[in-house]
């Protein structure tokens, strides 16, 4: 058997066993947050790695969280149904914004600006409909009557949430890997370099871009909904808006854009940073984490564009391999 599979299986088994051995609630809480945000960051990187830099993912996350909670509170729809509905809503929103962009070749900076507007719009809608959403004060899903916790996807113990978050995190990694090994990856790499040449190779440029955007938006909405169910409190600042979108970009770039565990490393760093600032400086440091993100983002883009994990793995791999000489010879022959 492939040693990598064995290592993955052992690692996963250890992660599953962890909460049964170690039960410190605060640390488990941090782990759940890291896993949920890792999933959201992985979702972002699925399109971000191909140059589709979105600052609209705060919007998708907000839709996931608020639609699920509103359906539960106002219509009594169980999150088991509400979450898929919220994901569909985010997907439709993604298509409405992305289709015209891709069809009319809005790329690069202009695409970033359009998605930035999306973040802003979702935030405004949440604040403006405060009679329903609680506006900037935030929103709390109604507590389920006792015994109905499973139906309402509300659990009091951290172990259940840890296992749910772990499952979703693994799902995120599997989706990342599936995209990474699919022909869609080749197509997207080609598109990110030269759309005309990709089309000349027969690639339906608009459809391929929509595909990764849709996957990414659906995953992000799921992350938002789970965050809402776990925290039992959401506010526009924590699950939507430009700050959340920027945080995703920051975490993924710091962790590593082109490696599967990059977003996870990014989540560990951002959440630790936020917690350290919160514990160290309390309410005096509200918003400081964004300032630190901004500075670090600039530093990383200049000095470590592949992120922490990406750079570490690169260094590991650059030891010369015996096949490299062969490759050079083949190429020399090909040149002629």
């Amino acid at each position: 058997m492939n040693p990598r599979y064995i290592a993955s299986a052992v690692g996963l088994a250890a992660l599953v066993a962890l909460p049964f051995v170690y039960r410190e609630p605060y640390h488990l809480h941090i782990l759940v947050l890291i896993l949920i945000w890792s999933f959201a960051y992985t979702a972002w990187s699925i399109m971000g790695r191909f140059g589709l830099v979105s600052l609209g993912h705060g919007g998708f996350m907000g839709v996931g969280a608020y639609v699920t909670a509103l359906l539960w509170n106002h219509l009594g729809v169980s999150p088991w149904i509400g979450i898929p509905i919220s994901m569909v809503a985010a997907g439709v929103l993604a298509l409405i914004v992305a289709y015209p962009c891709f069809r009319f070749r809005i790329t690069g900076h202009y695409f970033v600006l359009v998605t930035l507007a999306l973040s802003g719009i979702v935030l405004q809608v949440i604040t403006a409909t405060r009679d329903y959403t609680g506006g900037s004060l935030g929103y709390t899903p109604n507590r389920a009557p006792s015994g109905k916790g499973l139906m309402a996807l509300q659990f009091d113990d951290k172990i259940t949430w840890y296992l749910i978050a772990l499952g979703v995190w693994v799902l995120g990694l599997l989706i990342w890997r599936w995209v990474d090994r699919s022909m869609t990856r080749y197509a997207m790499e080609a598109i990110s370099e030269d759309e005309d040449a990709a089309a000349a190779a027969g690639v339906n440029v608009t459809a391929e871009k929509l595909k990764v955007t849709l996957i990414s938006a659906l995953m992000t909405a799921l992350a938002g909904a789970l965050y809402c169910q776990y925290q039992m409190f959401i506010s526009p600042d924590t699950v939507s808006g430009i700050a959340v979108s920027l945080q995703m970009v920051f975490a993924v770039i710091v962790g590593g854009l082109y490696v599967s565990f990059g977003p996870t490393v990014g989540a560990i760093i951002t959440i630790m940073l936020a917690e350290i600032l919160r514990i160290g400086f309390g309410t005096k440091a509200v918003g400081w984490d964004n300032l630190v993100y901004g500075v670090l983002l600039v530093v990383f883009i200049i000095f470590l564009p592949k992120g922490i994990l990406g750079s570490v793995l690169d260094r590991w791999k650059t030891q010369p391999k015996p096949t490299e000489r062969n490759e050079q010879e083949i190429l020399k022959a090909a040149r002629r």
Partner: protein
Amino acid sequence: MLTVDGLVKRFGGFTAVNNVSFQVEKGEILGLIGPNGSGKSTIFNMLSGTLIPTAGSILFDGTEIAGKAPHRIINSGVGRTFQIPRPFHRLSIFENVALAGYYGQGSHSRAKADEAAERALAMVGLPTDRHASVDGLGAAGLKKLELAKALATGPKLLLADESLGGLDEHEMDQAADMLRKIRDELGITIIWVEHIMGVLMRVVDRVMVLDHGEKISEGLPSAVAGDPRVIEVYLGTDADSSQAAAGEARRKAGV
């Protein structure tokens, strides 16, 4: 196989292609020549869907393809190369070609794509090694890669924008022989665009000459080379071939 009728392309007030009509028969190599800016590439871009014609019709195998999306035209059996090679640097040589094999044939089968890539790479004489990087290729290698990508899409009609400008004489001959081999062995019909007449005239069955967006001559290479309008267009723009053409014209006229 291909019937182009009254093709027009205007960019604002500038008419790049003005009422051009021509036909391509199955199995022939049609040369498309003309000085820089004569509208060759614009016609190519309309044939392959990159540009939408202002007016006119393009019938490919009896179906109208004018204004269709590029990937649909490629899937229907048209392959194209770009004048300046446009490889995907983030993919290996093999992956570049396999991508075209996967999406270009519309089959979306990994096995078929790999097979098409291997055949196309062997045809043009590039290594089929899966990991060789594009960055190791020189000018001639990049042109081969461009051709392999187009072949992997399984075309019935190949639009070869082959500008041989960057190549030495030996490489030019190689490229010309390659096109003939593709027609002879794979039965692919070819339209070959070029602005140097020399090498092209040896290989093509028929030539069409463009100037300022209009067709000024069409016919067998020997006849076109003697056409006074063609000589006029080429005089001063391409000394070698125009002199050769003028010489031939003079010989014919018995001077």
